[in-house]
């Protein structure tokens, strides 16, 4: 201990204190402050960049989800539209068919009506014609009857043939 105390140099202690104070002051001012500040800045920058990347990733995921949703919606819409179109198509076809049917029915009915009236008219005409013919025949028959019985029969026969041709 005595030896240690003897070795202790007060002068060196004083010089060392002054130099160390100076060194700390200079190092803090010219080295540690800029170094530590830059390191902090850089670390904050890195942290910021990482956070930004993380955010971007999240946004990207959101965007993708949105896209997916939109796509889904679009698909649904397309399907409903297709479905509607299909329905519309079949309805139109059905409508057209129904209308055509009714038109055809109507036309048929009209035609039948026309046919019926024509037939009636024809019948009436035929009737009148037959009546006329019958009268003519009857008249001729009556006339022939009066002359020759054979001739009368022949006449009726030919008359009937004529009437058939008509």
């Amino acid at each position, binding site marked *: 201990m005595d030896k240690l105390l003897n070795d202790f140099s007060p002068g060196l202690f004083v010089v060392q204190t002054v*130099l160390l104070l100076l060194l700390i002051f200079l190092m803090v001012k010219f080295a540690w402050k800029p170094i530590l500040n830059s390191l902090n800045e850089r670390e904050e920058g890195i942290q910021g960049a990482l956070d930004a990347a993380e955010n971007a990733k999240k946004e990207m995921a959101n965007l993708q989800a949105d896209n997916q949703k939109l796509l889904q919606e679009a698909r649904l819409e397309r399907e409903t539209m297709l479905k509607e179109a299909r329905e519309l198509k079949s309805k139109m076809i059905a409508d057209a068919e129904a209308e055509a049917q009714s038109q055809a029915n109507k036309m048929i009915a009209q035609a039948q009506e026309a046919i019926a009236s024509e037939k009636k008219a024809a019948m009436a005409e035929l009737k009148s014609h037959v009546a006329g013919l019958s009268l003519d025949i009857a008249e001729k028959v009556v006339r022939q009857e009066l002359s020759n019985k054979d001739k009368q029969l022949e006449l009726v026969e030919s008359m009937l043939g004529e009437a058939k041709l008509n």
Partner: protein
Amino acid sequence: MLFASASAMAKTPVTEGNNNGGQVDTKTEIDGYILHHLQDAHDFTLFSYTNDNGERKHFGFPLPVILWTSKGLVTFMSSEFHHNDDGHVIVEKNGLKFAKIHSKIYELDGAATAVAFDEEHHATNAHKVLDLSITKSVLGVLLVGLLMLFVFSRLGKQYKNKQIPTGFGRVLEPLVIYVRDEIVRPNIGEKHYRKFTGYLLTVFFFIWILNLLGLTPLGFNVTGQLAVTACLAIFTLIIYSVSGNKDYWMHIFWMPGVPILIRPVLAVIELASALIIKPFSLLVRLFANISAGHIVVMSLIAIMYNLRESFGVVGSTSLAILLSFFITLIEVLVAFLQAYIFTMLSALFIGMAVAEHDHDHEHDAEGHEIADTEDVRSDFI
């Protein structure tokens, strides 16, 4: 090995001087040489040899001697002592006479013309003066200071232009980050660490580089000087005492949570711990480790001479080289370790002084306090 050589040193009175031309051969001379190396020196000597005429030649350069004497400041070059270290060369300046005995400069009293010694080899007619010389250690401090300032300010400037340093700065930056993230931040805590980082970084690199410098053949032994380690320890003491908060002093003077009667006793113990034991442990640990390292390495080199008779020249030399090589490797580790420990403990002591003990804790269902990480940390330190 260390204890053996240390106790041998303590017992043997150091006799230097008129041996066979200044050669270091015997055990006593080796002990004296080692002891001499451990002390600070007033000139920078790389090596010495004895020429053919029997003259001792020293290769190196003198350093300025600056003394605060009874008549004020006196300066001269150390070469005026002509490498004499036992008080036989008297230098006269400003009407005062000076002698150098075992690396200490003495001012002779009154009209004395030569140093008189008592039987314990203490000077009787001379007293020590305040020696502010640029000694070898001061030179070492200056060199390391300038080196640090140069290298780290260059690193600091690099950040102005680029985000990532290039060249040597790429080596330094991880070291700075290591000290900040592994030593300063965990021990002081996130909130306060920033303002102590500058001091702790300075101290870490200062001690580390000086320790490494001590392993070079330049022969510096700066961190093995008590004055230097004491200065460093006192800086730490001042910093943690000044920045200690109310809780810290409260825990020293009036420890909460213990019986009133014990508190004054605890206060004495705590005060001694804070003001004496902590800085003393810091200064002695660094001093003792570095001195021991130097003693061991030199003792192992000395095997070359001590065991020459038993093993022969080749045997003892190769043994010395082998052993000192491995011990030097360990010393490289110790150089870092001691810088780390000094910085770590300084950070720890500062951390204890600025730790915030928040007394309103969260309580769980049974009313027990839930310890948060900060509390666990402050319990540890």
